[in-house]
């Protein structure tokens, strides 16, 4: 137990370092841009411009700006929006993270839930039509990018469903109502669900042929017990190893999904800020993303030994 805590502590420090390091690259890249952030606001007098630059600390030498920024990040302060003056970035992003996290959570539910169910069923009914349908769906599904699924989802649930039901039942893009969650979550989760299904099927097929599972059948245990308690638990190990990249994929995938469905999360903010050249927010969102990816990977690594006791930290 102490070992685990020590391990988590080490990893947290490493995540903090990685986050600062990676967002430093973005910080330095974006500060190489010639001109200043307020070039578009051409109605300003030189004095007002100087005052504004001073307000954001942009008149300081780059090294000083960088030191200030790192100190801010370590204190959880990401500065102020360059476009919407006076808007603090940290609270804004925390609010948006909760939105993104909701979509991401349901997408993960789709990914793992649907992927596991399809994979297990396909493995148990190997070489039957159930298996063929599930496997073909998985083979196609994991190549169709999430934004294509999103477009089709919008077309089917937003447009055709509206036409068929005469406008009584349909999906309305946006955010705020619970019925607006399933379509984006499906779009985001389906490609990865196919991947999980493929992986689960392969590892389940291997597991159900092992001796200890045969023993479990021979003892006369119920099918439910054999499948879920004996076979599935070991079959899950390879699935858990890809959860880390999976979560990263869902986080980056949400950038385009949120823009398609008009969900006010981190991803939409990211793209909007890049297009509006609000560099402070771009750096801020990026810092958030880097931290989230790190934390997601850590969570997976902590869950891992629960399934596979051979692994200890």
């Amino acid at each position, binding site marked *: 137990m102490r070992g685990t805590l020590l391990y988590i502590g080490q990893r947290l420090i490493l995540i903090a370092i990685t986050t600062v390091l990676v967002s430093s690259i973005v910080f330095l890249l974006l500060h190489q841009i010639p001109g200043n952030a307020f070039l578009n606001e051409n109605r300003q007098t030189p004095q007002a411009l100087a005052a504004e630059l001073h307000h954001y600390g942009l008149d300081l030498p780059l090294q000083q700006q960088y030191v200030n920024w790192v100190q801010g990040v370590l204190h959880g302060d990401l500065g102020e929006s360059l476009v919407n003056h006076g808007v603090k970035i940290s609270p804004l992003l925390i609010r948006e993270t909760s939105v993104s996290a909701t979509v991401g959570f349901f997408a993960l539910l789709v990914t793992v839930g649907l992927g596991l169910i399809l994979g297990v069923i396909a493995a148990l009914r190997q070489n039957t039509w159930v298996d063929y349908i599930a496997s073909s769906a998985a083979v196609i599904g994991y*190549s169709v990018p999430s934004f294509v699924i999103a477009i089709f989802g919008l077309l089917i649930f937003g447009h055709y469903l509206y036409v068929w039901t005469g406008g009584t039942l349909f999906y309305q893009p946006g955010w705020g109502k619970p019925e607006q969650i399933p379509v984006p979550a499906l779009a985001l989760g389906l490609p990865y669900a196919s991947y999980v299904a493929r992986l689960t099927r392969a590892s389940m*097929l291997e597991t159900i042929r092992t001796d200890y599972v045969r023993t479990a059948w021979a003892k006369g245990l119920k099918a439910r017990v054999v499948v879920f308690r004996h076979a599935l638990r070991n079959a899950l190990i390879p699935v858990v190893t890809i959860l880390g990249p999976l979560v990263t994929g869902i986080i*980056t995938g949400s950038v385009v999904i949120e823009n398609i469905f008009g969900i006010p999360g981190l991803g939409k903010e990211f793209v909007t800020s890049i297009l509006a050249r609000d560099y402070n927010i771009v750096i801020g969102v990026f810092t958030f993303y880097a931290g989230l990816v790190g934390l997601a990977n850590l969570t997976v690594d902590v869950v891992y030994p629960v399934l596979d006791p051979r692994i200890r930290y």
Partner: protein
Amino acid sequence: MAQAAPVAQPEVELTYDMPEQATLLSDAWRRLRRNRIALVGTVIIAILFITALISIVWTPYPVWLQAVGPTYQPPSGAHPLGLDQAGRDILSRIMGGALITVEVGIGSAIIVSLIGIPLGLLAGFYRGKVDTVISFFINIWYGIPDLLVALILVFVLSDALHLIPRGVFVIIIAFSLTRWMDVARLVRGQSLALREREFVEAARMAGARDFYLLVRHIFPNALGPIIVQATFAIPAAVLFEAFLSFLGLGLPSPTPSWGAMAADGYHGMDFAPHIVLAPTIALSLTLMAFNWLGDGLRDAFDPRMRR
């Protein structure tokens, strides 16, 4: 002792039933041919390449030519895939998009390999400090949201700094700089294992230098997995380009990128779904084909990995 008379050597033509010479590639090809789904992928990829080549010299209409007919016109005899919101022929643009897809995919696979292979070879071969440094970077790179870094790289390199004009090249560079780790990690593992093998040891005993060992012994023996990994880099790069262009941060407007075309059609989806369907289906088929080929190659190069 009488000298043994020399035994008359019968003039016999020595013929053995030599198995057909199997090189790495011919062997893999033989196994790949038996894999039906990989063959389907290969056929789709062949069509993609041919389309891309044709589009260099000929498309039904110029890809940028607007108002060749009424805007939003659905598919018809003259325009098999219809016209888009600016009245451009979608078939021509899909063909032009195939060329961009091929350029991005192949270019990225090459650059990713050029970065990843030397780093991986060095890390696995020299171990110790070299490995520690390279592995540190690989692990750091795995911890970052790669697509988003690449997105910022494209933006900074071409829009903000004007170092490289916004185009295929900058996308390849940004993708490769953020996704070189897959190849590097794989090659590192291969080189780590191969350097202990007897034939490498024998070559070293014979006085081979490190460079010769790496290039003539370790690299060729890791070639199979490298080809597989490079094949998987192609769909990833293609998807990245589509993702960027869809968000309006990729290739600039008249370029017939499939992602940008999907973004164009997305706004008029309710009344003209054909605009969005053509590029998304083309994109999905391409990604599928490369993934199938990659899976097939993996099985072909490594028979033990058979599922």
